[in-house]
């Protein structure tokens, strides 16, 4: 048998090495490699080293020469002894070298878990292997391993597989067996620990969402969501589909981590810490995407058939509802029912979109129950779309119905944010007066028919030296900067009532900017702290 065989197409060159490559046959191998490459310089080269038993420095020199003409070299199925040589000599730094995968048998092994993409077997006393359902899972496994590593480096406690193995025709990742209990099990077995679970679960969620991910290291959830929305356009009335698309599109880019499948089976309590597992869905994006998948896990999937949650999570739907409600309030740090409901609405819109698409793609429309379920979700989705104008939310933002009865709520929110920014008392009063004036104006004039929302966002600017307050409403276009200033020199008798509020705002704030953008009035106040 030849030591080297080759195949070539327009895209790449494949070399199959076997046996031994040493000074005795190096010249011959080198000539053969040159013959295969001839004319294909600069193409990527894939070297399958499955049958390669030994390579001396003469063999390494062939690789070096090859690298001069074809820079992109990828060696796969490398046996441990060959890998060691390549590693010691620094070749693993120069080219992509992959080890051969160890083979593991799962015959007679205990099954300790089943997930949507694989089955977990216990292979010996200390180790488990997660075997993926489909044969081409290698990329998926490597991805999960990479993202788990990334998460760990960024400070998220998780389990990382220490080996990738072949299991029959598929692949698996091997983990150390932890003496762990999932939060689903804890909630099912020890209902008295509900509040403890809520706290730990929310702490971890905040930790994930507080983690900034270097650009490009994780996929962007918004891009994925735009694909779900695109799919929905064939199943929703045109106007609703367009509104959905616009709203998802308007969610600003967020470089914070989201888990993507954060339910209680994916959080485990080990001896001494709480760890997050199932990292393959890790992404970056706005927390609304996370809340959407959480809503689905606890309520959405089981909305038509309440038994589903028991099947899936192991606890009943009442526990699930209680847990979700507590988690949402703890996460949002508010008990204000309207605030919670508005944010829940946003999460549900994305949640239903995702579930409807998933169910249709899994032939949900072909069964009676499937159709009833899709109908229910679609009905909910359309109602939510009708009453929601934005999918964005922020702890720096409050969204209320534009009604003067909500003024106290708005002022309370502003004051708590100004406290966080350590705003001096006098400035604080001026800001509160300004916010009152603007909010009252929106409440009185923005929506001529019916009621709409007003969003007020407070954030520090210029390294905390300023505060910026942004008002957004979807009412009729109205630029307060065009209002004429009142004549403040007139006597009481000649004074007209009105115009004073805006005048005070202009006089006491350092900046007032207005823009009509995307069907919304956006007014920004800035004030030096």
């Amino acid at each position, binding site marked *: 048998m030849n030591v080297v065989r080759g195949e070539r197409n327009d895209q790449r060159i494949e070399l199959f090495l076997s046996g031994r490559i040493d000074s005795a046959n190096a010249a011959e191998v080198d000539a053969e490699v040159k013959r295969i490459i001839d004319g294909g310089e600069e193409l990527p080269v894939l070297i399958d080293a499955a049958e390669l038993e030994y390579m001396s420095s003469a063999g390494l020199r062939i690789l070096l020469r090859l690298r001069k003409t074809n820079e992109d070299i990828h060696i796969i199925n490398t046996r441990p002894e060959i890998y060691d040589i390549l590693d010691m000599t620094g070749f693993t730094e120069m080219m992509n070298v992959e080890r051969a995968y160890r083979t593991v048998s799962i015959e007679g092994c205990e099954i300790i878990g089943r997930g949507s993409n694989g089955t977990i077997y216990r292979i010996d006393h200390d180790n488990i292997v997660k075997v993926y359902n489909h044969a081409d899972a290698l990329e998926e496994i490597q991805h999960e391993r990479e993202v788990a590593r990334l998460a760990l480096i960024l400070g998220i406690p998780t389990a990382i597989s220490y080996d990738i193995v072949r299991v029959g025709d598929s692949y698996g990742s091997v983990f150390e067996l932890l003496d762990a209990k999932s939060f689903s099990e804890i909630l099912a077995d020890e209902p008295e620990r509900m509040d403890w679970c809520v706290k730990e679960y929310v702490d971890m969620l905040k930790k994930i969402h507080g983690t900034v991910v270097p650009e490009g290291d994780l996929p962007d959830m918004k891009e994925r969501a735009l694909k779900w929305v695109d799919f929905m356009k064939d199943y929703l009335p045109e106007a609703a589909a367009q509104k959905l698309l616009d709203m998802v599109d308007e969610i600003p880019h967020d470089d914070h981590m989201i888990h993507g499948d954060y339910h209680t089976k994916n959080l485990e309590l080990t001896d001494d810490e709480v760890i997050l597992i199932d990292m393959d869905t890790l992404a970056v994006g706005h927390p609304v995407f996370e809340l959407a998948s959480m809503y689905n896990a606890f309520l959405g999937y089981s909305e038509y058939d309440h038994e589903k949650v028991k099947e899936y999570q192991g606890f009943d739907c009442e526990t699930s509802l209680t847990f979700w409600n507590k988690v949402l309030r703890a996460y949002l740090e508010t008990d204000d029912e309207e605030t919670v409901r508005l944010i829940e609405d946003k999460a549900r819109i994305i949640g239903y979109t995702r579930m409807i698409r998933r169910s249709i793609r899994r032939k949900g429309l072909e069964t009676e129950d499937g159709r009833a379920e899709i109908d229910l979700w679609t009905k909910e989705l359309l109602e939510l779309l009708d009453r929601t104008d934005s999918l964005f939310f922020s702890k720096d933002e409050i969204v209320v119905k534009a009604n003067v009865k909500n003024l106290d709520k708005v*002022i309370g929110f502003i004051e708590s944010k100004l406290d966080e920014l350590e705003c001096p008392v006098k400035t604080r009063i001026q800001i*509160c*007066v300004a916010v*009152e004036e603007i909010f009252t104006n929106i409440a009185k004039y923005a929506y001529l028919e019916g009621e709409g929302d007003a969003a007020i966002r407070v954030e520090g600017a210029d390294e905390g030296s300023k505060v910026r307050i942004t008002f957004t409403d979807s009412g009729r276009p109205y630029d307060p900067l065009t209002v004429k200033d009142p004549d403040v020199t007139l*006597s*009481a008798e000649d004074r007209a009532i009105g115009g004073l509020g805006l005048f005070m705002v202009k006089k*006491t704030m350092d900046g007032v900017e207005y823009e009509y953008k995307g069907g919304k009035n956006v007014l920004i106040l800035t004030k030096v702290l």
Partner: protein
Amino acid sequence: MTINKEIQDKTMTLKLAGRLDTTTSPELEEELKASLDGIEDLRMDFSELEYISSAGLRILLAAQKTMNKQGTMSITGVNDTIMEIFEITGFSDILTIK
């Protein structure tokens, strides 16, 4: 906001505490509507008032107009922040601030 009212003959003293804003100014408006008849000296004590918005200014302006017809009106104990608002809006020229 709390309003403390004292009437002696034709003198009424209103002591306001808290915030005079969109939500609370209707209370002051009601109070004035109910009690201002026959009053010739209206005194407002703002020493415990933190805050005033344009809704409050409107009530003060209306009260000043009424009192211009039937007597005098004065305000005491105005803090810096409220004073600044009076100055910006020209109310410092309209009102009698002691």
